[in-house]
């Protein structure tokens, strides 16, 4: 077992920006927007109607027919991303210790679209019409379970449900299992809730944009920030013990998981919430500080920050304050490529991690789109056009609704 940081050996992506790592990365570098009008269901009666949808997905071609009736769309995306990641990592599960490979992914609502359909059948037609697969297809752990079963990965596994912070927390848990002796963990997260039931959950937070213009719906750090746009998709990330990866012949690593921390905001009294510029007592700042310390680094060692980018002014301000408190005003390049995809709930932060690793690999920071400059008073160096970099480490930040904060440091 290695005492050094675990390595990332494979990536798989299913996102509005592309199906597949390189498709997503090329679109991201080009600043190609993938947010548009919701087409997945009739959202005409809702105040928010924009989304980042995965397009061009042929389920019948990509998913074994046995799995089609028992998987939500987001689980199908997860399976495709996991297949890509395991192939990318050149993992042949038959050749590795059966209980030495685990699966730990992030989720939020589970198979929401599947579950809504079955609930609809229950109430409109009766219980005889509910699919037997509803027993697990809706469940948060469905992605973990299906990946585990399909690829025979029988080691310690689990699911982390921390809203948009989960995409980092799952990787943090993967690292914990690797330290405890599991040599390989398939991690990350792929999510989606583009159905009325999922939509209502997000609408209820009051944080969704009501913009009708896809180019105006998700403007984090902008003076015109007016909420966020939901999206679907994410990234599956293969994390391995460094020595074990070397022993099985891995030659190409994307990078290493250097540091991780998670904090939780205290319940705000209404007065605190109004007056707290850090919107949560500095939980995100603490998570970032602790993750960097966990990596044995100082803020000056971080070359780029992939922001949580909430898109709500109060939360944007809090994040900008946290970043400038840690790095100094305009002290580090900050980017939010999720402006192209929307916020992907359990998949978003994992996609950020994958994008960060690609950024370090290719020495270029992808842009934040639709935001020409940060709002006055937000002292962050926002990357608005693809920018060359010699950064060797990246800090990824993520916040989940109702107080989750997470931070991850990756290095290449």
């Amino acid at each position, binding site marked *: 077992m290695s005492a050094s940081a675990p390595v990332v050996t494979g990536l798989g992506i299913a996102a509005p920006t592309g199906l597949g790592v390189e498709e997503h990365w090329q679109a991201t570098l080009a600043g190609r927007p993938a947010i548009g009008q919701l087409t997945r269901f009739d959202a005409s009666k809702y105040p928010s109607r924009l989304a980042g949808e995965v397009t061009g997905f042929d389920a019948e071609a990509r998913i074994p027919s*046995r799995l*089609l009736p*028992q998987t939500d769309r987001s689980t199908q995306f997860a399976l495709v991303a996991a297949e890509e990641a395991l192939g990318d990592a050149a993992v042949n599960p038959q050749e590795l210790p059966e209980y030495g490979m685990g699966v730990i992914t992030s989720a939020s609502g589970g198979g929401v679209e599947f579950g809504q359909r079955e609930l609809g059948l229950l109430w409109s037609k009766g219980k005889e019409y509910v699919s*037997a697969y509803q*027993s697990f297809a809706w469940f948060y752990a469905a992605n973990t379970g299906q990946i585990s079963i399909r690829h025979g990965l029988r080691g310690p596994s689990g699911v982390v449900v921390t809203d948009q912070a989960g995409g980092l927390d799952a990787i943090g848990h993967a690292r914990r299992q690797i330290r405890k002796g599991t040599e390989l963990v398939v991690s990350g997260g792929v999510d989606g809730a583009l159905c009325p039931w999922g939509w209502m959950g997000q609408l209820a937070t009051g944080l969704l944009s009501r913009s009708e213009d896809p180019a105006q719906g998700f403007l984090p750090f902008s003076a015109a920030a007016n909420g966020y746009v939901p999206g679907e998709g994410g990234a599956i990330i293969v994390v391995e013990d460094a020595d074990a990866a070397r022993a099985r012949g891995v030659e190409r690593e994307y990078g290493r998981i250097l540091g991780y921390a998670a904090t939780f905001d205290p319940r705000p009294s209404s007065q605190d919430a109004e007056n707290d510029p850090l919107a949560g007592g500095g939980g995100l700042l603490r998570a970032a500080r602790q993750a960097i310390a966990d990596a044995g680094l100082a803020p000056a060692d971080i070359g780029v920050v992939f922001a949580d980018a909430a898109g709500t002014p109060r939360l944007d301000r809090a994040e900008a304050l946290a970043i400038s408190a840690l790095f100094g005003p305009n002290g580090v390049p900050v980017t939010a490529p999720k402006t192209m995809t929307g916020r992907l709930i359990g998949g978003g932060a994992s996609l950020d991690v994958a994008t960060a690793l690609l950024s370090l690999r290719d020495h270029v920071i992808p842009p934040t789109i639709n935001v020409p400059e940060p709002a006055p008073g937000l002292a962050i160096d926002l990357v608005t056009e693809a920018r060359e970099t010699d950064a060797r480490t990246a800090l990824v930040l993520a916040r989940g609704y109702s107080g989750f904060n997470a931070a991850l440091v990756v290095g290449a």
Partner: protein
Amino acid sequence: MAQTIDREVLTRLLRESAGVEEGVDLDGEEVLDTPFVEIGYDSLALLQVTGRIRREYGIDLPDDAVSDAETFRSLLEMIQSAPVVAS
């Protein structure tokens, strides 16, 4: 008048309800007596198809059918001897 379920119909219902495992030819002869679990159908797959049979054909299978019917042939025989529920 109850519709009957023959081998062809059951094959189609299985395929539609639960898909087909890669490499399995549901129309092949050996499928008839191969245990379901070996051709990729678990208890949920059988629940799925027997639920559909109940809904569309009014054929009521005993609850044990799912665990007792280990092969295609035995499920087919069970279906063909089961009572029809009044709709």
